[in-house]
């Protein structure tokens, strides 16, 4: 899988993006949509860090390492894909040299790269705790030092992440040329800025929960206390409720104030199959409110099954939201006399992403094999 993927990447880099099925209308395609999703899910890393180091929820120490690794994978993976997605990767650094401070994308680029650095540093001590490396005295010292600054890093990471999750939302919210995506905002940020933050931190823990569960299934080991799952579910659930609340308000404002002002008619947006109004419903209720309630209920009733379904639904929900913002926005026509369009990714696009996914799995399993991702793993094996 990695092989085919790398081949596809090679094609795209050497022959150019004509290898994809993207076109002048679908300037963004599968890659951007999945990047957004992945980064949203990766939010688990910083948010758990935030809960642990800033809010001092020490139970979460059990999953923090795993969360950090996940975050690292998600972010590095996303950046890898982005490098293939842009037409001129060798010029990507222009963004740092000649930045346009008004562009949400600039914010995103800066934050993501910085945060990736932070994650790398957070990753370091986990690596250093490897038995072999512990032999080197200087490394021990280094690790110890790192531990002292960890809260600071967490804080920085949190700030950066909050910011770029927002910017990712802003990415679409500011498109005043696209009434479907455009949102009014507070200060310089459109509402999507905050909604993306909320949805990301809401689903981040859910994703951590899912992965942790998956890993323990595969390795058939108990990795964390059920209580940890419960906290994650609870946190995720309540955040999701808040998110859905705001999302609902935002949608109403958008439909009744923002859109009419642009001269467009909301009904038109959903006049095109397959993107009927059901999308809106699914986004807010089916994959928003429902998982939220399930999660809370699950946490209350100590039912892991519920927690898991809730988490899965929540993750699906955030994916759907990112899909709508990316693909549907481009599919809906703006001019009266132009057609509605659809697009299917080419195998190169899919393969490229699978390669990154594969890289993620490999990196994670290596970390799991050689590093101590779940500190309580040992103790839990006792009984």
């Amino acid at each position, binding site marked *: 899988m990695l092989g085919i993927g790398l081949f596809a990447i090679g094609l795209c880099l050497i022959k150019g993006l004509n290898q994809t099925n993207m*076109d*002048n209308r679908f300037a963004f395609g599968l890659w951007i949509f999945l990047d957004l999703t992945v980064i949203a899910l990766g939010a688990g890393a910083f948010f758990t860090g935030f809960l642990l180091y800033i809010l001092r929820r020490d139970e979460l120490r059990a999953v923090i390492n795993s969360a950090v690794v996940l975050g690292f994978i998600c972010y590095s993976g996303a950046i890898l894909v982005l490098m293939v997605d842009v037409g001129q990767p060798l010029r990507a650094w222009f963004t740092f040299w*000649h930045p346009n401070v008004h562009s949400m994308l600039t914010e995103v680029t800066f934050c993501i790269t910085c945060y990736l650095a932070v994650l790398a540093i957070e990753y370091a001590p986990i690596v250093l705790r490897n038995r072999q490396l512990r032999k080197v005295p200087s490394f021990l010292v280094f690790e110890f030092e790192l531990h002292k600054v960890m809260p600071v890093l967490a804080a920085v990471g949190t700030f950066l992440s909050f910011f770029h999750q927002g910017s990712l939302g802003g*990415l679409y919210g500011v498109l005043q040329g696209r009434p479907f995506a455009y949102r009014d905002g507070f200060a310089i940020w459109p509402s999507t800025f905050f909604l993306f933050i909320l949805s990301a931190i809401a689903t981040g823990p859910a994703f951590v929960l899912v992965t942790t569960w998956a890993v323990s299934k595969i390795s058939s080991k108990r990795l964390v206390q059920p209580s940890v799952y419960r906290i994650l579910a609870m946190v995720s659930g309540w955040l999701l409720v808040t998110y859905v609340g705001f999302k609902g308000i935002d949608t109403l404002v958008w439909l009744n104030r923002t859109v009419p002002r642009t001269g467009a008619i909301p009904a038109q947006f959903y006049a095109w199959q397959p993107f009927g109004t059901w999308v809106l419903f699914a986004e807010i209720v089916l994959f928003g409110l429902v998982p939220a309630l399930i999660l809370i209920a699950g946490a209350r009733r100590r039912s892991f099954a519920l927690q898991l379904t809730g988490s899965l639904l929540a993750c699906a929900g955030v994916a759907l939201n990112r899909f709508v913002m990316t693909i549907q926005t481009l599919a809906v026509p703006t001019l009266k006399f132009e*057609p509605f369009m659809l697009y299917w990714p080419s195998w190169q696009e899919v393969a490229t992403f699978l390669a990154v996914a594969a890289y993620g799995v490999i990196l994670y399993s290596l970390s799991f094999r050689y590093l101590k991702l779940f500190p309580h793993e040992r103790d839990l094996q006792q009984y």
Partner: protein
Amino acid sequence: MKSSANSGAIIKRRFGLVIDLDRCNGCGACATACAVENNVPPAFPEVNERTGLTWMRVYRAENGRTFPDSRTVYFPISCQHCGHDTPCVSVCPQNAVDINPQTGVVSQIPERCLGCRYCMAACPYHARYFNWFDPTWPAGMEKTLNPDVSVRMRGVVEKCNLCHSRWQVAKAKAAAAGKQDLDPADYTTACAEACPAKAIVLGDLDDRNSEASRAAKSPNAFRLLAKLGTDPKIYYRSNREWVRRLGDADVAQIESEASRG
């Protein structure tokens, strides 16, 4: 400091096009002339209407009635050179898009562009095009390229810039004659020049006695998606009410021939 005062003299123009849709009969000469002038390469065999490069693109639209009452209108659409909250300018992460203060032209600099295509997502007119392929001409045809326009490489965005190279040439000519500003007769776009029906007019929209500014003020003149508040500098005019409704953004979607079924 005569020299500095001299070269710093402020010239502010708002060049724009006024396109008379009642004269346009969709011959496509504007699109062809544009491609020749701006070294836009011919299509690869794989290229279709969704991946092509057409700085000036002519859309066909119908009034939605049926034979024999059906009527067709052609919308020549290039970059609309929005003057206010220009959607593509603010989104470009590395300043590859800006507005020339002297002409009001929205620029797109292929050498700076990294090909993220965010500007294309931002443009409501789909007037920006991405180089999905390396530009290629049949052997020998590169001898017919216009030396005043650089050929774009694969992986960057390009679009209409109101034949800016012609503006540069006219400026140089004026400067050689010691004049600060160009002679309007020396500067027109390839599309306006080529239109057999004289349906396209280029002019300074601020210059009260330019033909363009006068036409733009006519009651039947309108701008596409004007309600978005981006103040585009390309005006359209038609005496036919249904055409104006098609161009403006507040009527229900009308079946478009452009959909090709």
